[in-house]
């Protein structure tokens, strides 16, 4: 028993563990500071600040319906967060997630409405079609980067507008439902959509698909040779070349895969929670993917947690906007502050240092103890 305790302690005091603990504490603390600053803004602007804060923090948990909204809100963020993780791990700052998510949702809605196959085959086919089409489009900035070293950040950002307007053209002129009162794609029958897990709060199986995607992304990145090649290329190109990794191909593939995941997510989200595609502007989920990925330390398994947290804040903010006199935008202030603190390398660095110093002393002490046993 005592031995086990010592063993547990020695694991806890390993520098790696400490690093992780400190990172998590850092994130939570930055969340706290951001929330406090957000509350100060609420205090300054609201007539009933305490009620407002209570709504903001507690309403997402208060009833099953709002909690379902939190889960639904986190689905798109998981997908785009994963897409960003993959691309950033490969060293590519590609913004195509935004356009791919939007186009994926549109393609998914259109394709699913065309077929009516048994066992929910049509939504899955639609999701795959969306992923493949956007994979082909994602080839453009990827190839430009790999062969001509065109900065993928700029080209993908610009490409988003091209994608958006092409989709809007198709939407306005080809794939719309003439019988519906406003601009929308044709209605999706039950068999053409993803089933609900719980019809009461409208949580669909898209959340499960999202979690599976996160797990698959983790396994792909950390357990396969291709994942190894991607991570190596992302953190040290010279070393990757030295090992004989085909760096150009990695740069190409990782961006295509990223675009595919985002498009797949767009289709999944739409087919899980809507009856039609009705977006008339970019939904910003692709950009939010970066925020989620940063909060998750660019680790696929942490992405769902970060996405859930974001979903929580958003649902809280929209409830707050509905029930009080403070607008929704407060959540963007909080979001920005979190990113500033989490992204700031020097934040709490002294705390980290002390922690590690202590860890080493403890580790040595424990080694001595083990020897005495």
């Amino acid at each position: 028993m005592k031995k086990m305790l010592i063993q547990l302690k020695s694991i806890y005091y390993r520098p790696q563990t400490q690093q992780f603990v400190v990172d998590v504490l850092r994130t939570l603390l930055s969340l706290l500071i951001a929330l406090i600053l957000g509350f100060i803004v609420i205090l300054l602007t609201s007539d009933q600040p305490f009620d407002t804060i209570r709504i903001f923090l507690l309403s997402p948990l208060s009833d099953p319906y709002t909690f379902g909204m939190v889960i639904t809100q986190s689905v798109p963020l998981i997908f785009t967060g994963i897409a960003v993780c993959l691309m950033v791990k490969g060293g590519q700052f590609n913004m195509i997630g935004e356009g791919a998510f939007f186009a994926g949702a549109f393609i998914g809605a259109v394709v699913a409405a065309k077929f009516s196959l048994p066992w929910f085959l049509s939504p899955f086919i639609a999701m795959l079609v969306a992923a493949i089409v956007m994979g082909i489009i994602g080839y453009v900035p990827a190839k430009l980067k790999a062969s001509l070293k065109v900065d993928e950040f700029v080209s993908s950002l610009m490409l988003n507008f091209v994608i958006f307007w092409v989709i809007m053209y198709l939407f306005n002129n080809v794939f719309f439902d003439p019988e519906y009162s406003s601009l929308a794609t044709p209605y999706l029958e039950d068999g053409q959509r993803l089933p609900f897990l719980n019809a009461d709060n409208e949580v669909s199986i898209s959340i499960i698909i999202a979690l599976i995607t996160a797990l698959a992304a983790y396994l792909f990145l950390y357990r396969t040779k291709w994942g190894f090649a991607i991570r190596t290329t992302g953190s040290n190109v010279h070393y990757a070349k030295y090992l004989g990794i085909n760096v150009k191909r990695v740069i190409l593939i990782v961006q295509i895969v990223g675009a595919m995941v985002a498009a797949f997510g767009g289709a999944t989200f739409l087919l899980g929670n809507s009856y039609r595609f009705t977006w008339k502007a970019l939904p910003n989920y692709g950009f939010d993917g970066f925020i989620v990925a940063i909060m998750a330390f660019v680790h696929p398994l942490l992405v769902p947690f970060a996405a859930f947290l974001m979903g929580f804040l958003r649902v809280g903010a929209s409830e707050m906007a509905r029930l009080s006199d403070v607008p929704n935008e407060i959540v963007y202030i909080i979001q920005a502050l979190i990113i500033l603190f989490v992204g700031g390398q020097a934040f709490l660095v002294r705390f980290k240092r002390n922690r590690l110093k202590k860890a080493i002393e403890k580790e040595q002490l424990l080694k001595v103890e083990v020897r005495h046993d």
Partner: protein
Amino acid sequence: MTEVIKMEHIRKVYDNGFLANDDISFSLNSGEIHAIAGENGAGKSTLMKLLYGVEKPTSGKIYIKGVETKIYNPSQSIKLGIGMVFQHFMLVDELTIFENIFLGNETAKFNILLKDKMKKKLEVLSEKFNFKLDINAKCGTLSVSQKQKVEILKVLSKDADVFIFDEPTAVLTAPESDELFEQLRLLRKAGHTVVIITHKLQEIKVLCDRVTVLRKGRNLGTYDVSQITTEEISRLMVGFDVKLQEEITDKKIATDSLLEVKDLVINPSQETRPISFNVHRGEIVCVTGVEGSGQEKVIEMLMGLTKVPAGTMIFNNHEVTHLSLKSRRELGMSYIPADRMVLGTNLNSTVFENIAAHDILKTSPRRLGFFDKRYLKKAALKHKDEYSIKTSSMNQSIHLLSGGNIQKVVTAREMENDPLLLIAEHPTRGVDVGTMELIFNKMRNLKKAGKSIFLVSTDWNEMMALADRIIIFFNNEMTAIIDEPRLLNEYDLGYYMLGVKRMVTLV
């Protein structure tokens, strides 16, 4: 002989958790040459960086001339009379020696430079310490040993009493080292204190008055060099007895050549004789030369890292001149690069992934690309034990290891990759004596198995222990091919490396 500096109970923990110095106390006297000896990762450089103010101690006290002092940065330590000459020189190539020496330390009146006054000072110093330098030459044109002299003058010009040298002879040839030692003795005579960080036992014996031995961040004591033998010092450094004997193997007359390089041009814009040589199966060919003499370029071309301007390379009956690095590796080349921090490892990754990199990439697509982590980890653990890589776990981030241990990781990975030809640049640089012997043995085993090694080295012991032939480069040309390395003496080697001598057959 007065005590100039005293350090008491110094402890230094780096941000990443590495304990570099653990309760070290020691002192320096005026007019002595003091060696800090120890393996790599023993904490020598850290201790000196603390004294020079580059790093701050976690705890402990530093007394300078009896007064407790806190050193916050190098400019403060310079004011206190402490100067340091680093391994990597910090000179502006475009400026002259004179300008470099007084850069940031100008004598001026009303913001107008007093060049004559500075020149006078420099002349006096050069005279006193016997530096023969043209102070108006641009630093970019200087040789390594001349650059080092400029660095020494730079410290002298700041009126330093204490000189710290970080492995000063690592970049020098034997005759150049002798010259440096003469100058260090002159400094001692003038009452200055000289500290040299080194792990070369011979130097300690020849040059130093006292030696402080560090191991694993601890001080094992300060000794008078006259009262301690080199064997005792090496035992203190490593912790056990080491015998670095030279194994004279019978020289096989091999005819079958594995690698043939013909008429290779290193720098097309320069008029040089093209380079041709070959490496036989089961042979260790050593290439040497002062840094930047062209041997590094040859390696880059051999591995396909730079394009070959002219010439051909044939490896194992395949023409490889324009092949990619990947296909060269597939043909059986393996490479230990000199730059282990950027080219040789991924510092953001774990020890495991760095050791097992080749095996991971060899995973067959039939497994859907999933590598067998448990199996590979077992293999990696075996390499870890064999090469005595010091790490608390395989999942440890590799940047927490010391430089010598990172070198071992690279060496282990490349040597266990079953190569036909191992290209090794300084494979034992910074590695402790015990592991050095182990790597030598591994290399001899490779050779016995009929594999070849193309070794780039400037370490005399390494060349003598391993080389079947030595090729010497100077100024992008070959100056000598030595067929009987054991008949070569250190000074001749130095002359070939400096281009003073040249083999008749190659002219």
